[in-house]
């Protein structure tokens, strides 16, 4: 008997620029791994500019967990190591060589390997960072066994890619990845799929897993929301979660004996001429693709979706965890008496604008803040878009007050920035909800370690 979870709270933002289900190829010459993509790590560089690397060669490791390796997605030369303020490591750029070359890993089927052996291969090859954990929403701690592993098989974010399309025809890799993961937990592996037609057979016919159905608006596709409803994280427990593309990469690791982080991304948003899907490799530079696809104008390039992605600029690289690039207008304009207008074209979750009378209207949003930052004034706003049994404003206030006990009591172990992204979107006081939450998660992790 399948479990069906109905999510009632939340918000589906309808935006223009959804990717058409057509797949192109995109294999540019430059790639990068960005330490800033990974919350809470302290990178120790293992390469210098000019070094030759293969796919799967270690670029840097985490000083906290030296076993966790971050490896090169392609074979080539380290062209540039970018640093920011205080010499913070920003990007390790690799110029791809003509010839593919890769570090060789064992090609045994996971069922013939012990848990320790599997873990070592995952850690060494560079696929481990794809496995994340709650609490704290960071890379999984290899020393701790998870009580369950969750794989969200759909993305409910605005203009999100269709995972059913992405995994289509990759059943063997997916199953092999699941087999490897299943050795790492005594608990269940949960595949959380959307209700309705069109769910890929790759998910539904997987073995050794439990299928859970989810229904309802964003953020129903967030693993945090799913875990909260299926089996919440309690103090002292650890749950792992990954995205289907990372399971495929793990599968390929054991089938092909190499780190092969190819992925499919959706190029979306109002600033793209022909939004569609592309087969590419993790960390790909996007400028060549944007050169032909970007419309004229002042646009922001976001690796990820509009709620949680990062602004990477025109010459930026695809983020490690992202399967989507969204391009939207910059909103650096003044609007005369804008707060007074009836608001036919105003994107809002509230009913204070006329646009709410057209529920199917698609919006072309921009990055304007639409107001000034204020203290918390309205109540009940966040709760409408957060389908969790958690009081978000109280949790955020506990973080601002640096009250560790209260943070724990109010459920900080269960949440991540992405779960609160809609709270930030709807906030009439324009409070930086995700940044505050990340501060709290970091504070908590430091306190508990």
């Amino acid at each position, binding site marked *: 008997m399948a479990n069906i979870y109905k999510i009632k709270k939340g918000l589906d933002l309808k935006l223009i620029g959804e990717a058409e289900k057509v797949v192109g190829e995109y294999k540019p010459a430059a790639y990068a791994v960005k330490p800033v993509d990974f919350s809470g790590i302290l990178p120790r560089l293992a390469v210098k500019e000019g070094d030759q690397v293969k796919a799967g060669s270690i670029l840097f490791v985490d000083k906290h967990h030296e076993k966790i390796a971050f490896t090169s997605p392609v074979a080539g030369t380290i062209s540039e190591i970018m640093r920011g303020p205080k010499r913070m490591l920003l990007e390790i750029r690799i110029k791809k060589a003509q010839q593919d070359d890769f570090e060789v890993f064992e090609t045994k089927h996971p069922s013939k390997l012990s848990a320790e052996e599997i873990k070592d291969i995952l850690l060494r090859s560079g696929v481990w960072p794809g496995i994340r954990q709650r609490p704290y929403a960071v890379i999984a701690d290899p020393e701790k066994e998870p009580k369950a592993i969750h794989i969200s098989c759909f993305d409910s974010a605005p203009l999100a890619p269709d995972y059913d399309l992405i995994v289509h025809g990759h059943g063997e890799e997916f199953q092999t990845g699941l087999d490897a993961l299943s050795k790492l937990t005594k608990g269940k592996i949960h595949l959380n799929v959307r209700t309705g037609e069109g769910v890929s057979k790759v998910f539904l016919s997987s073995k050794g897993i439990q299928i859970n159905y989810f229904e309802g608006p964003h953020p129903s596709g967030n693993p945090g929301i799913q875990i909260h409803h299926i089996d919440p994280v309690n103090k002292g427990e650890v749950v792992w979660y990954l995205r289907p593309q990372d399971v495929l990469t793990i599968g390929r690791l054991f089938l092909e004996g190499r780190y092969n982080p190819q992925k499919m991304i959706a190029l979306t948003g109002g600033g793209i001429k022909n939004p569609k899907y592309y087969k590419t490799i993790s960390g790909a530079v996007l400028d060549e693709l944007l050169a032909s696809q970007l419309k004229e104008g002042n646009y*922001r390039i976001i690796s990820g979706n509009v*709620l949680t992605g990062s602004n990477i600029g025109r010459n930026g690289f695809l983020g490690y965890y992202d399967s989507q690039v969204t391009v939207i207008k910059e909103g*650096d304009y003044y609007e005369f008496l804008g*707060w*007074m207008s009836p608001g036919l074209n105003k994107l809002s979750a509230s009913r204070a604008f006329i646009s709410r009378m057209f529920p199917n209207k698609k919006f072309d949003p921009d990055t304007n803040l639409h*107001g000034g930052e*204020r203290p918390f004034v309205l109540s009940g706003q966040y709760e409408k878009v957060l389908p969790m049994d*958690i009081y978000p404003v109280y949790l955020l206030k506990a973080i601002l007050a640096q009250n560790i006990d209260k943070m724990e*009591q109010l459920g900080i172990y269960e949440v991540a920035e992405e779960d609160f992204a809609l709270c930030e979107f*709807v906030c009439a006081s324009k409070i930086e909800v995700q940044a505050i939450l990340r501060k709290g998660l970091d504070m908590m992790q430091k306190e508990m370690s």
Partner: protein
Amino acid sequence: MKSLRNYLDKIKPRFQKGGKFEKLQSTFEAFETFLFVPNRVTTQGSHIRDALDMKRTMSTVIVALIPALLFGMWNTGYQYYLSRGIEAGFWATFWFGFLKVLPIIVVSYVVGLAIEFVFAQIRGHEVNEGFLVTGLLIPMIMPVNIPLWMVAVATAFAVIIAKEAFGGTGMNVFNPALVARAFIFFAYPAQITGEKAWVAGLNHHAAIEGFSGATPLSQAASFSLDKIPSLNDLFYGFIPGSIGETSKLAILIGAAILIITGIGSWKIMLSALIGGLGIGFLFNMIGANPYMEISPLTQIMMGSFLFGIVFMATDPVTAAQTDTGKYIYGFLVGAFAITIRVLNPAYPEGTMLSILLMNVFAPLIDHYVVEANIRKRTKRTVQNVNA
């Protein structure tokens, strides 16, 4: 608009740090952002943001207040001409009231905003929009004969003591507008009670025979039940009272605006209504004095009960903030409002005191609601450890 924008851009540096008028930076910003939604873009977190901001929120509340305000102006004229026995046309009536009410609004806004601007500059942040609503609520809950200096003093007291002393918008415990009224109620009771306060001119001239300026509440408090106006008059608002409170129809239009836009909490309004009606029924059953025998429907139509639960109890900062808490808070506001007015004749208007009282208890109600959530989570953890 381009030329206006250019002009603002030109003079802006003078108001910024190092400029000639840097002390007026907050004031300049307040006017600038009033005219133009700023060009600021998101830097971290969500790249797109909801079009709803504080200005939109507060202006929606003001729109919701407009029907009651306009009727209040007209009724001020209507009551005046009634008291003098003069027939007057619609526009003449409205104009008379407009001229009476406008100075009160101007005084409230000028005093309140001046203080807000000063505090914003001292604190170094933008001027908050909260006072736009407070500044209109204050005149609407005043008797029309209130001396203007008293409005000024009460507004200053409310903004400084009830709001800025607590840390400004979002941090205050009490609804500032109600504090202004409570201040006058306790400091200058003569001006806000009795029969002469509510009808323009009555404090100077006698009314024609047969006209009493008494509000339905004071009629009820003196057990003159036969003098309470008909339900119709109570509903449409052809009665003496505070400027904005008399027309229940206009208030209901405002309530509809708040509920449809989602800016005001229907949970608080509904539960307060149930609380008020419930206590009204209870008093009916006890029936120990004539006041208790007034029907619950008449009870909620008298005085500022509806105005209070629609516009004052729903103030998001001072009300309960959790959903469960809102039901409890609202119910108690309604119940106490009727209880105070019936059981304590010294305070004919219980709504004001009831809301202020519940403002104090709102954080406590929320505390228990949140505690319940915490207990649930703790229990889950303990069970898991034992299992």
